[in-house]
């Protein structure tokens, strides 16, 4: 066990964990940040996506010991009240079915738009292809990203 100081959603957290513990389980088990989901544990589904210094990463395979002073953003920290343009677009387009994968989808989309506010449909395809949705909400995810892009560009 080792002690870690983490900067998550602009807040400092202190926690004890084995160095190889994936950030996902530190978030969920130690810190009670439950919006980041477990889906596969091998970085294949994207349900656990968080931002590390603004880049979308899979927290299920990211050892807590490698996080260091990098800024972590989870779905809880994307906005204070669910009003990030991507979250708003997701609501307006009514994307979720079961909803389980959507936090990861939103984090991936938000990272894409932060870097590239007007992505082409090919760029959206490439960015989102790593996130699985078992309910098949892909069409509405596409639509919501286009809508969020227009909100951001306004």
């Amino acid at each position, binding site marked *: 066990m080792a002690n870690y100081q983490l900067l998550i959603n602009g807040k400092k957290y202190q926690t004890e964990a084995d160095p190889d513990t994936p950030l996902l389980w530190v978030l969920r*088990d130690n810190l009670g940040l439950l919006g980041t989901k477990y889906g596969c544990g091998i970085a294949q589904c994207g349900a656990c996506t968080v931002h590390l210094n603004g880049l979308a990463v899979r927290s299920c395979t990211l050892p807590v010991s490698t996080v260091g002073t990098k800024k972590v953003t989870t779905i809880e920290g994307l906005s204070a009240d669910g009003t990030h343009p991507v979250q708003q677009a997701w609501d307006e387009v009514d994307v979720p079915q079961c909803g389980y994968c959507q936090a990861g989808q*939103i984090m991936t989309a938000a990272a894409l738009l932060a870097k590239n506010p007007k992505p082409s449909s090919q760029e959206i395809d490439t960015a989102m292809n790593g996130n699985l949705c078992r309910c098949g909400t892909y069409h509405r995810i596409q639509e919501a990203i286009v809508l969020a892009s227009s909100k951001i560009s306004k």
Partner: protein
Amino acid sequence: METIRTSRRDFIKLSVAAGGGLVLGFNWSDTEAAGIALVPAGASDAVNFNSYLAISPNDIVTIFSPNPELGQNIKTSFPMIVAEELEADWSKVNVVQAALDTKKFERQLTGGSGAIPHSWERLRKAGATAKYLLIEAAAKRWGVSSATLVAENGRVWDKANNRSLTFGELASEASQISLPAEVKLKDRKDFKIIGKPIRNVDNQAMLSGKPLYGLDFYREGMLTAMIQRPRSFGMKVKSFDGTAAKAVPGIVDVIQFKNNVAVIGKNTWSIIKARKLLKIEYEKEAAIESTPDHDALFRKLLDAKEATVRRKDGDVDTAFSGAAKVIKREYQCPFLPHNPMEPMNFFAHVRPDGVELVGPSQTPDMARNEVAKLLGIAPDKITLELTRLGGGFGRRLKADYVVEAAELSSLVKAPVKVIWTREDDMGGGSYRPAVRYRFEAALDKDGNLIGYKLRGVGINSGNPTREHNFPSGAVDHLLIDSIEHQSPITTGAWRAPITNFLAFAEQAFLDEVAVEAKKDPVQFRLDLLDRGKKSPVGEIRYDIDRMKTVIQLAAEKAQWGKKKNVAQGFSVYFSHRSYVAQVAEVEIKGGKPAVKRIIAASDCGIVVNKSGAEQQVRGGIVDGMGHAFFGNLTFKDGAAEQLNFNSFRLIRFKEVPEIDVHFVDNGIDPTGLGEPALPPTGGAIANALFKATGKRLYNQPFNKQPDLEGVSLGRSI
């Protein structure tokens, strides 16, 4: 719109205590005898209802939703139906998710696309009854006839005198009015909420990462556990050594129960690591089967003399011996895991005085009864709180993972949450059964279908045919039979059970028969239906007119046969009370076929929520297409060979085609939509690929078929 979760007792207490107001109890299931009743002020235990409608003095309308929500959007659609008849202001409607805490056994289930069909009328009557009481209360207060009053958008209006009162202002007085014997339901043309796209009531919570799901349930002092089940079906635990696992910091205990070895600890990662250190020796308990064994077995069973006859019309032997042409084809599918994105999990706390269960289940009543049986206690000692379900697809119709959690909690005498890894989930059974079909058709010299044979053989498949489905009833001589092989590999209902593959096989076969008969595939189906309508053969359990209508609507919307440079494939299927026809479109891009578009026409009766319904159709098609192309679970020595998404392929973002969704507008009471859009998809695509390439597909997954090399998927190709 807000949504919260509470127990029934608390709900009643809160609602009744909220300073008067109106509370109605009702049962949404049509299997229940009790109708609608007023819950009087001061009631604390009126729990013989599974749903409630409360109108508080501050105008908030609260609807208590009893049924599991797993993405089929029922938690939004149910209240829409109540609110419609009530004439409520939708912005003031709250939805509360029920826990299972009645004394009484009741139907509380999500499966078989049955939620809305079962509850449609009950929900409408509940809303209409509340509206009646509010109008009567207003009539009394104003001293006018109730016939002169109308309810609109959360208010009762006396339009002649230009005055109105809100529902909240009338609620307490309304609770003093006697219930009507009958209520008048609205005419469909006056619907204001039903049929509109209404957003999911849980959107805000889901999109901001609120802990809604079973895996998100944490409680102070709770232990977490993972269970090592036998990797191979047919094996049992001979001995185990948990010393190394137990030595991992954070591990509380390692215990065996039945064929399971549980690693119990304080945090998930320690448990994952410790479990890898378990040393378990297994021994053979039953047959150890592999996929090649099943392939050989299927061929043998298809030729077996004895089979269970499911339906027999006329005399197939004579029809086939006198036929001008006989077509015989076989189709096979593999096992499939359900793979809901949220793996199985459940929280259980078995105490001396009762049991608390919390988690995701499609059948909470069954889960509770099984736990009661296991522990030898009365079901009313058990509370089960439903969380939102991170998908189900049929997997959570089984209670194995609930019972297991309860058993473990009773053994360790502590609150425990059992969680499954993806590998546990994919390797843990309850699969869509592997099945093989042989279809035979006899044509006369004019290309008429005079004989039809189907044999289905499957592994733990139950009856793998649907003997009364189309084209039964439209063919003079027909024989449908089946053989089931019992295996240690466990199976269960998988979204659109049996029809998820049977529909592909049948619709691909009929397409081939139509081509052999030199008929247009759409016209061929319509002719058969006309034939069944004119002189039905035996029993017909599908509605010929409804099936014809979806066929015609899909053909019209897709401009069937009229598009240039587009290969179209047709498919239609009736399942779970609804009818869906689909046209798949394949275009040649860079010399290779690309699946570009699917046009769907559905008849599910009245569409309750346009947004949710469209999602169910699109999602069903994506699901059907993804599993037809990629879904493949194979076995070696009794163990599943694919255990995670690196080896088990799910369809991804850029592979989905454009999907156009159309509904038949016929005013029939809703007939369900969670499953019916899935079955036709594989057939439509296979038939379109045949048009494009001249090659037929007989087995799933398509991507393992040699003829499919080079096919690309996706709307943007």
